[in-house]
């Protein structure tokens, strides 16, 4: 018996399409890489600074700008809590309205519109607009984070509500319950546990975001960090980053505990 040839079947069966795609990918990569303009002189100079920065993690300086760091962190935290609470409170009606199985069509369209608007733009872009409206300071930050929270929570809430077991809602409706009673007894128990988990998760995200929107003047630790980088005070920058990481890790641990207790 003569040996039969065998080779693994390719991912894309059509050879022309396969080669065409590979060629296009290669051409794009080439074009993309060649579009990077690098000033190697500047990079070489910067590497020393990079090394200095990495080294500064070994001896972060919490002390000399502790006043600024402390103020920034407290501001970030207060922005985070306020924005998360306000955002969730506003997200609940929007989420209810964006659930196809509960809301009438015009309300549905309106709420979906709000969600899409909130999710499309980066927090920092929204922050620019709010700073222009409210002036510099944490209020613009709170508005930004709350706005982003609405889109995030409302979208997931709406999806959860659309996925609930209709039989349970029907059973509650069959008892003669009013619409709010249906919400409380038929819908809420089904979506609550995940909502609490998501809220804690969003709290976490809001804190991380609060650390950057300060760059455009919306309050929080970001402004302090930006200043530290501008002045090449790497020891202080390292200290701030370590504080951020510690808080994020702490809140992540907390949210995992909360989510586990709920299940």
């Amino acid at each position: 018996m003569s040996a039969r040839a065998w080779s693994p079947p390719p991912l894309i069966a059509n050879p022309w399409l396969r080669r065409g795609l590979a060629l296009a990918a290669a051409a794009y990569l080439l074009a993309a890489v060649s579009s990077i303009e690098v000033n190697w002189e500047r990079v070489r100079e910067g590497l020393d600074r990079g090394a200095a920065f990495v080294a500064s993690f070994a001896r972060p300086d919490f002390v000399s700008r502790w006043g600024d760091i402390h103020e920034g962190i407290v501001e970030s935290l207060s922005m985070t809590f306020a924005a998360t609470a306000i955002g969730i409170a506003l997200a609940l009606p929007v989420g209810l309205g964006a659930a196809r199985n509960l809301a009438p069509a015009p309300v549905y369209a309106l709420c979906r519109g709000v969600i899409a608007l909130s999710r499309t733009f980066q927090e920092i872009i929204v922050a620019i607009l709010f700073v222009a409206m409210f002036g510099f300071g944490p209020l613009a930050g709170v508005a930004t984070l709350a706005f982003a929270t609405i889109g995030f929570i409302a979208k997931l809430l709406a999806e959860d509500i659309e996925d609930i077991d209709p039989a349970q809602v029907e059973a509650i409706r069959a008892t003669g319950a009013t619409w709010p009673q249906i919400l409380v007894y038929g819908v809420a128990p089904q979506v609550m546990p995940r909502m609490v988990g998501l809220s804690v998760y969003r709290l976490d995200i809001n804190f991380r975001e609060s650390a950057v929107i300060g760059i455009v003047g919306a309050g929080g630790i970001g402004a302090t960090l930006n200043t530290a980088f501008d002045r090449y005070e790497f020891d202080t920058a390292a200290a701030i980053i370590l504080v951020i990481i510690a808080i994020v890790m702490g809140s992540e641990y907390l949210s995992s505990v909360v989510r586990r207790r709920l299940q």
Partner: protein
Amino acid sequence: MTAVPVWRKRNRREALTVWLGWIAGILLFAWSWKAVSDATMWVFVADAHIQAADMLSRMVPPRWSYMERLWRPLWDTLNIATLGTLLGLAIAVPVAFLAARNTTPSRAFARPLALLIIVSSRSINSLIWAMLLVTVLGPGMLAGIVAIALRSIGFIGKLLYEAIEEIDPTQVEAIQATGASRLQVLTHAIAPQVMPALAGISVYRWDINIRESTVLGLVGAGGIGLQLMASVNVLAWPQVTMIFIAILATVVASEWLSAKVRHAII
């Protein structure tokens, strides 16, 4: 007379815990709001609606002709996102294999290290990475690419290592039983199982990276954000609107593309 049976949803202690939780939450909110309010100039806020109306009137109509100067920054933005995702992917994949319980070579050393890399990468927003890299590498695309890559490591690494931990262990056993080496088990039993997840995660992250790279320019790391910052600084609102429209179109297009690709994979 018999006592009326009492039924409560929660027993006394649970009820107390719930109430204390609510009270703590409300106090926390009150404190936060006070802190925010103390740092706010309410005089400025009072005429926010005037500011907003003013801004809006300046923003429309957008300066359409400005678009011709946005093509190059948009191309840069796309490249930052794509190259950053690829670079991040190249680092995240080995990190994920070191972090997954069932593939790590050492639970005492490699796994905690890999998890530390993932956590630090996830904790820090790509804009902070960009700020840092701009001081190190100088302003430009390179800083943006590396910033995107550094942020992507944690995201891809976390989702991928969770996918690796969820693979079917009997398929791995079957390949081990043929006398395959550790690396062969990796390529023949584990890789085929996590490939779809990896592809989905990468495309998803690429989509996020497109959004993020639109703003990296705010700190000097290349892309369309540079134009945005420049326009905001000189209060050229019609240009800002044009940039918003360009960003919106790019984000919608990338979301559509990534949804298409993910759909094709699954």
